[in-house]
């Protein structure tokens, strides 16, 4: 027996409502350190407009944001600052690691550049590229919206379950052995099996 509801009444769950609200209004905190920051600005500009997807304002104070976009290489001097900004963001919060340098250190495998912020910060979405085109960043935001819609909860219970670090060492323990996960020792690493 179908309920005869008037047009303006919806029957849903709190989780679905919260997910719909949160995913469609992800306000980014642009943590732009280098060249990816320029592409982030281009994504916010009028031609590729990230505001179409809910990222209406780029607040530069972490207290008012829910999405941190780490755009650019992060040096060891900057990493404690990044961690502090992440801790200052209120729940619920997500993180996009934009570009090759934030995801893995990029071309800069040197003494000063951290080889991927996911070693020290929990990351939800990675965007490859050097720099990624604005369309790629927008795709990452869309994918994150899908992730929130599928796995989000009203009280944010899905965050409490992520108790382990999610960096390359932990991934190397989970992934099959013939996939290169943490390059650096190129003389000993194996090629990716593409079959």
């Amino acid at each position, binding site marked *: 027996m179908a309920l005869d509801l008037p047009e303006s009444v919806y029957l849903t769950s709190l989780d679905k409502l919260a997910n719909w609200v949160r995913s469609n209004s992800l306000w980014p905190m642009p943590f732009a350190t280098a060249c990816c920051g320029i592409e982030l600005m281009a994504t916010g500009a009028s031609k590729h407009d990230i505001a179409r997807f809910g990222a209406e304002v780029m607040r530069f104070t972490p207290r008012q944001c829910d999405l941190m976009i780490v755009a650019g290489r992060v040096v*060891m*001097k900057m*990493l*404690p600052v990044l*961690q502090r900004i*992440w*801790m200052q963001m209120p729940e619920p919060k997500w993180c996009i690691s934009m570009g090759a340098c934030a995801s893995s250190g990029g071309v800069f*495998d*040197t*003494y*000063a*550049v*951290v*080889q991927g912020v996911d*070693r*020290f*910060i*929990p990351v939800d979405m990675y965007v490859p590229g050097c720099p990624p085109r604005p369309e790629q960043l927008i795709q990452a935001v869309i994918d994150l919206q899908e992730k929130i819609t599928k796995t989000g909860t009203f009280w944010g219970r899905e*965050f*409490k*379950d*992520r*108790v*382990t*670090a*999610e*960096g390359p060492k932990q991934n190397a323990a989970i992934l099959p052995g013939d996939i290169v996960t943490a390059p*650096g020792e190129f003389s000993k690493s194996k090629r990716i099996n593409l079959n």
Partner: protein
Amino acid sequence: MPFDDITTRLREQFGSDSFTTSEFRDNRRIHVKYERAHAFLSYLKDVLGFDMLFELMAADYLKYPDARDRFGLVYGVLNMATGERVFVKTFLNEPDLTIKSVYGIWKGADWLEREVYDMYGIVFDGHPDLRRILMPEEFTSYPMRKDYPLRGRGERHNFPIITRAES
């Protein structure tokens, strides 16, 4: 003034065997001992009119074939009136990596010397505030030396890990 005039006046002031010169196209260099470098640079600025220090860098010759000294220090000076450049090159060896600072001659040498100290460990005597400028303050090594590996010794990953559950 042409380079020969410069070298003649330097020989008059400091003696004929106090320095050697070399040239390649328009790159004119004067090689001096590190004890006399400050006096040479002071004379170049005050008397010969080289009023801008545009370059202060060091080089580590540890793995260089047939090198006699470990560190070379290069001062580049520019005469803003005539546009001439001269490079003054000195050499330093361990264990005594100290040289008199040229902060008293050019104030702009402040950060240049801090960078050389940060990257090579060469101490500048008389510098008002000699501390690290590019690396964090608590960094212990000198990264541009040839015996420091490119990927570092693990300092870049020596930070606490924040998991999602606790942040």
